[in-house]
């Protein structure tokens, strides 16, 4: 069936009695003390968003304390050390605990509704990510109350953050806490990629996808490629702090600039990771507000992809003053200019849509926040072009000009669209709209407060005031500008307070929502309940509610796809990625505690490790793994439900194996994350060699073991993969058990472990130690990364073996096994690349 086939009739109406009641029962949200076990996207999405806003408020309070300190020169309202902790925690919280999570939360909350899916494909993974974030985030933030907060700035540059200059656990809270929260962000990204590409309604091909879905796809892809770089950086820095492996210590061949490269390879895309979903939201709101399809849909998609992609080529523009040759700077300056083109396309498209509107843009609260966003973001973009010009950047670097610039970009580009979103989409999840009157008050206070606070900072910066200073001498003439900025900050805070009052007075959670007050044309405005929409619509245009008459009534009457629950459980339709042809019905898990406990113990592992309670941390880690296994044990239901009818005579399987299954897609995304992390490692190895070739083997370090040594490792790796492959062929028929497949699976995993141990032992035998030099540290780090993947391989192999023994994995019900095999093959490929690098490169030099 293609998207051009006739769509009606799909299902006869009226629907059988009890069908809707069954949907309500199956998708019911737990109540009372069981609420934390809920996995419905509307429940956990709202919770996620609420916590993100809480962090916004907390980090905002820190900003007010800082502005009070800076209100005039020579002030001693807070101590210098506390001020350092304040700006570090403010920046870190805003970037890692508010901005990215708020956007992921909106993805969790809005995407299934916009795609008319019953939920995202891995509801428990979403819940796990959210709980991990909540626990990790609250513990991290609370460090400011106990003088334990990091003080090295949100980018934590070494050598300042090395143990010699930052003793104590403060920096470790950043490194382990934020590293852990990034894992949660990656889990959310996996969910979003698979959700957007595979759970769209039939007919919603790529060219008909809502722009927000496109922006979330780009957002998630950027997380997948950007976050691993900073995860590797935090691993390296934490390992150096804990064990003395000198990745960043210049005296032994390391280089602090390696941190900057890795951090900004993440940090620059991070700005767009925050901005692009916000731009996607604006692209959804503007057409609804003027009742006109978006002008230049394809160009907006182009702009989202291009901005996301090109943003990876800009990281060095944060390092213009580090001594990199001028021509290299010019390459990145050119890339910085190039990225301005797609950003500009979006702005012109919104203006054109407003100009072409069938209805004049009324000055409602969402419109005001959108106009405020356009004004502020364009100014931030223009100063961005200024700092992309190398000579100007030399002058403005590390001054308040840069503080003004990035607040204009981030607050303008993300916070204003977010507030527009709150006012626009509140009726989707609340039985009452937010107040227009209070909303306008909130906007004007925030808009004027923001500009009063941040516009003077351009001048303060050009007058020479550096960033991150605790205080300044009154004689320098910066007092008046700083006093104005402080007044603006409090006005901005008053605007946020008005919004909170509005929320308290008018926001009332409701599954049915308050209708479609903006007369939007996209699917989230379909009538719905706890199960999302009554039936899943067949989509033929980009604005189905405008172009398909009676769609709301038909969907509500159950006339479209999957009006009931044919498997008797939670389910949604999986469609093909390009043209959204129905492929199978996915069975989904419901509420449960395992993912919550897994998150609690994962957080315990990281946080106990931070305060050096190693044994309790290990116990926490083991419990986290146990609960992860309990969680996934209930998945992979097998084909016993057979084929089900979803309407229009289409019968779909309820179980799917192979590379087209949604689980296999998630594994591919996970492998991309691992590959990104490994590429960042390969870059680090080569970078440190270019900086300090004098510490590299064979000249100034023990030569690598003889070639037969890595050959044995390689044979063990390949043998392990072959063993798993053979196990896959020998899986038993359903209802039978064999010894061969479990034994081969375990043997394969053991071979991989032996390969890693053999490799590390080989280097140890040569006399090389990881603490000797950056070279030694990099060699052993390759083993650490290989060991990490192999540990995951071993756990998954053990899990699969137990499932085989329990009769839950066989030739037909095989997704658990196939996913294990996928990760094994990837791990072996990565390890072989590592062997070539570690054993080949020094020989190439020698």
């Amino acid at each position, binding site marked *: 069936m293609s998207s051009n086939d006739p769509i009606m009739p799909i299902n006869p109406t009226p629907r059988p009695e009890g069908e809707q009641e069954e949907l309500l029962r199956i998708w019911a949200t737990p109540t009372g003390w069981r609420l934390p076990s809920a996995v419905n996207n509307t429940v956990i999405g709202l919770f996620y968003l609420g916590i993100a806003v809480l962090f916004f408020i907390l980090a905002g309070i820190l900003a007010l304390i800082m502005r009070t300190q800076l209100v005039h020169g020579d002030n001693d309202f807070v101590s210098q050390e506390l001020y350092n902790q304040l700006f570090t925690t403010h920046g870190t919280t805003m970037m890692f605990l508010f901005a990215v999570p708020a956007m992921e939360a909106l993805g969790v909350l809005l995407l299934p509704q916009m795609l008319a899916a019953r939920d995202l494909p891995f509801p428990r993974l979403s819940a796990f990510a959210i709980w991990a974030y909540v626990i990790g985030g609250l513990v991290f933030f609370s460090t400011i109350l106990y003088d334990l907060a990091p003080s090295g700035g949100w980018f934590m540059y070494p050598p300042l953050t090395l143990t010699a200059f930052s003793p104590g656990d403060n920096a470790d809270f950043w490194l382990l806490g934020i590293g852990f929260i990034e894992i949660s962000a990656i889990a959310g990204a996996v969910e979003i990629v698979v959700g957007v590409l595979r759970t769209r309604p039939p007919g919603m091909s790529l060219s008909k996808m809502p722009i927000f879905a496109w922006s979330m796809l780009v957002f998630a892809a950027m997380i997948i490629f950007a976050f691993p770089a900073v995860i590797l950086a935090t691993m390296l820095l934490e390992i150096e702090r804990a064990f003395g492996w000198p990745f960043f210590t210049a005296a032994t061949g390391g280089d602090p600039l390696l941190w900057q490269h890795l951090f900004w390879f993440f940090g620059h895309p991070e700005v767009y990771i925050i901005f692009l979903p916000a731009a996607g939201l604006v692209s959804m709101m503007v057409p609804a507000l003027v009742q006109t399809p978006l002008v230049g849909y*394809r160009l907006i998609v*182009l702009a989202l*992809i291009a901005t996301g992609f090109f943003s*990876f080529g800009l990281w060095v523009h944060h390092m213009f003053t580090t001594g990199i040759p001028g*021509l290299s700077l*010019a*390459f990145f300056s*050119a890339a910085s200019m190039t990225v301005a083109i797609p950003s500009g396309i979006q702005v012109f498209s919104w203006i054109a849509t407003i100009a072409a509107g069938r209805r004049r843009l009324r000055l409602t609260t969402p419109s005001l926040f959108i106009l405020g966003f356009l004004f502020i973001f364009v100014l931030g973009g223009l100063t961005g072009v200024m700092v992309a010009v190398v000579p100007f950047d030399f002058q403005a670097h590390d001054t308040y000009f840069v503080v003004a610039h990035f607040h204009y970009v981030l607050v303008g580009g993300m916070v204003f669209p977010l507030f527009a979103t709150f006012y626009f989409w509140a009726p989707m999840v609340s039985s009452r709209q937010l107040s227009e009157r209070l909303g306008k008050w909130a906007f004007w206070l925030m808009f004027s407060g923001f500009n009063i606070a941040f516009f003077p900072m351009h001048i303060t910066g050009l007058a020479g005031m550096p960033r991150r200073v605790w205080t300044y001498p009154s004689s320098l003439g910066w007092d008046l500008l700083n006093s104005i900025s402080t007044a603006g900050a409090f006005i901005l805070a008053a605007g946020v307070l008005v919004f909170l009052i509005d929320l308290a007075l008018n926001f009332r959670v409701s599954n049915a929502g308050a209708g479609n007050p903006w007369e939007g044309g996209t699917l989230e405005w379909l009538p719905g309940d706890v199960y999302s929409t009554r039936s899943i619509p067949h989509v033929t245009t980009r604005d189905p509610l405008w172009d398909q008459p009676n769609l709301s009534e038909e969907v509500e009457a159950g006339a479209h796809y999957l009006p009931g629950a044919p498997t008797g459980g939670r389910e949604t339709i999986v469609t093909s990625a*390009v043209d959204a042809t129905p492929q199978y019905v996915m069975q989904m898990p419901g509420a449960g505690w395992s993912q919550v406990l897994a998150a609690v113990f994962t957080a315990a592992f990281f946080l106990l490790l931070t305060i050096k309670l190693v044994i309790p941390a290990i116990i926490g880690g083991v419990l986290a793994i146990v609960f992860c296994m309990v969680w996934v044990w209930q998945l992979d239901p097998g084909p016993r439900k057979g084929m089900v009818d979803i309407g229009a005579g289409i019968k779909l399987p309820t179980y799917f194996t192979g590379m087209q299954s949604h689980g296999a897609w998630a594994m591919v995304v996970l492998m991309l994350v691992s590959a990104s992390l490994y590429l960042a490692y390969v870059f680090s190895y080569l970078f440190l060699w270019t900086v300090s070739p004098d510490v590299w083997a064979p000249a100034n370090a023990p030569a690598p073991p003889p070639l037969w040594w890595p050959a044995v490792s390689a044979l063990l790796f390949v043998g392990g993969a072959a063993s798993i492959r053979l196990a896959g062929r020998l899986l038993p028929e359903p209802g039978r058990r064999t010894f061969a497949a479990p034994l081969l699976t375990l043997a394969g995993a053991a071979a991989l472990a032996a390969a890693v141990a053999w490799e590390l032992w080989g280097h140890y035998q040569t006399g090389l130690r990881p603490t000797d030099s950056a070279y030694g540290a990099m060699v052993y780090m390759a083993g650490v990364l290989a060991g990490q993947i192999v540990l995951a391989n071993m756990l998954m192999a053990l899990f699969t073996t137990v499932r085989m023994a329990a009769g839950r994995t066989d030739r037909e019900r095989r997704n658990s096994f196939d996913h294990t095999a996928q990760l094994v093959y990837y791990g072996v490929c990565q390890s072989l690349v590592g062997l070539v690098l570690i054993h080949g490169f020094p020989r190439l030099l020698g």
Partner: protein
Amino acid sequence: MSGRTGSMIGTFLFVLFGPLVWAGHLLAIYGSHASLCEFGALQLFGLPIVPILLLVATIGALALLAAGLCWPRRVQALLRADVGEGEERGWLTRLMRLLTGLSLVGVAYAGVAIMLVPICLPLR
């Protein structure tokens, strides 16, 4: 179910053809330039190796992008990309061309710098 052959990974590579060439170009010119300047390896057989290398990489990237713009179907076949049928195919192909065109601007922009900025001189 769709009877088309072609993979989704191919689709991604097809749509991102231009940006991927741009990324490869940036990686090649930045990596080679920074390393050669670091080691002071500026001459090979009496020729200025750095600008020659950078120009060859830039011309190669521009040629590749121009080819992608002119013959998107061939790129699609080469990558075994699933681009749907009919309207969808046209939509994705035009998207790929637009991205390739923008990447061409990006590569040319970086390439111009080679002729304007001193090769290994730090600017401050």
